[in-house]
């Protein structure tokens, strides 16, 4: 069934249509929540809250954006809310003047990074540790733009940030993560 028809039915409270919509997006939402919080239990909790919010506010969905984009906005908000609730988190502070972000001294042998292996546990740990040093709003911008493939404009809409704010978070996040991998794979 077409998604628009499903949404129409789901808005009337049709449970079968709701279940179908949840089924279509649960994998995407779970995966994205995990990518932000890097923890399977938290990702599951965020996924549950995201679909609960979807069902509660589906009547407000006007169809101007895709349902998937709307869901990314909800899941991003839930990730940020969860991160704010967790006290004791400290993240790196990044600014453009930070020379070390663009260090010209290379230490790693990038050809040795097993980036084509999807199940390399050592690499996974490095990726988890690196991204968790970033504040959640930097993580969501990097993940939406570079990993999920949204445009800068779409990322700005989803995160409710201005385009310049998206761009500055994006380039700092890229430079920071690159540097973390560079450190982790010292020659």
């Amino acid at each position, binding site marked *: 069934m077409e998604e628009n028809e499903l949404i129409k039915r789901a808005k009337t409270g049709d449970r079968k249509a709701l*279940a179908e919509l949840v089924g279509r997006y649960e994998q995407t939402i779970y995966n994205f929540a995990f990518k932000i919080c890097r923890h*399977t239990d938290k990702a599951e909790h965020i996924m549950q809250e995201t679909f609960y919010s979807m069902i509660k506010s589906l009547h407000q969905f006007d169809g101007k954006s895709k349902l998937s984009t709307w869901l990314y906005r909800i899941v991003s908000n839930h990730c940020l809310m969860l991160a704010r609730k967790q006290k004791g988190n400290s993240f790196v502070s990044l600014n453009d003047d930070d020379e070390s972000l663009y260090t010209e001294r290379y230490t790693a042998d990038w050809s040795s990074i097993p980036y084509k292996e999807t199940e390399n546990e050592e690499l996974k740990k490095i990726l988890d540790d690196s991204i968790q040093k970033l504040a959640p709003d930097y993580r969501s911008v990097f993940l939406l733009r570079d990993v999920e493939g949204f445009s800068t404009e779409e990322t700005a809409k989803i995160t409710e940030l201005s385009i310049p704010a998206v761009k500055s978070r994006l380039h700092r996040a890229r430079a920071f993560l690159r540097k973390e*991998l560079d450190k982790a794979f010292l020659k």
Partner: protein
Amino acid sequence: MIEKVTCKEVMQHICENLGEQLNSEKCAEIKNHLENCTHCKEYFKSVEITIECFKKYNVELPKDAHRRLMDFLNLNEE
């Protein structure tokens, strides 16, 4: 005469504009620099690899988590 760009400028530019349209005069100079500077080429490649690593790392929704989700939303088929 266009001012020569520095490696640091190129690196910042790569981080800011990777995947964007690069049409300005400055961008042309940056592309030119990239083609001729091994150092910056390596930097460009390393940013691309960084992104690729995060793209490849995905998790599957466990079956139990699907069941718990449907229970939580009260959407399980009776």
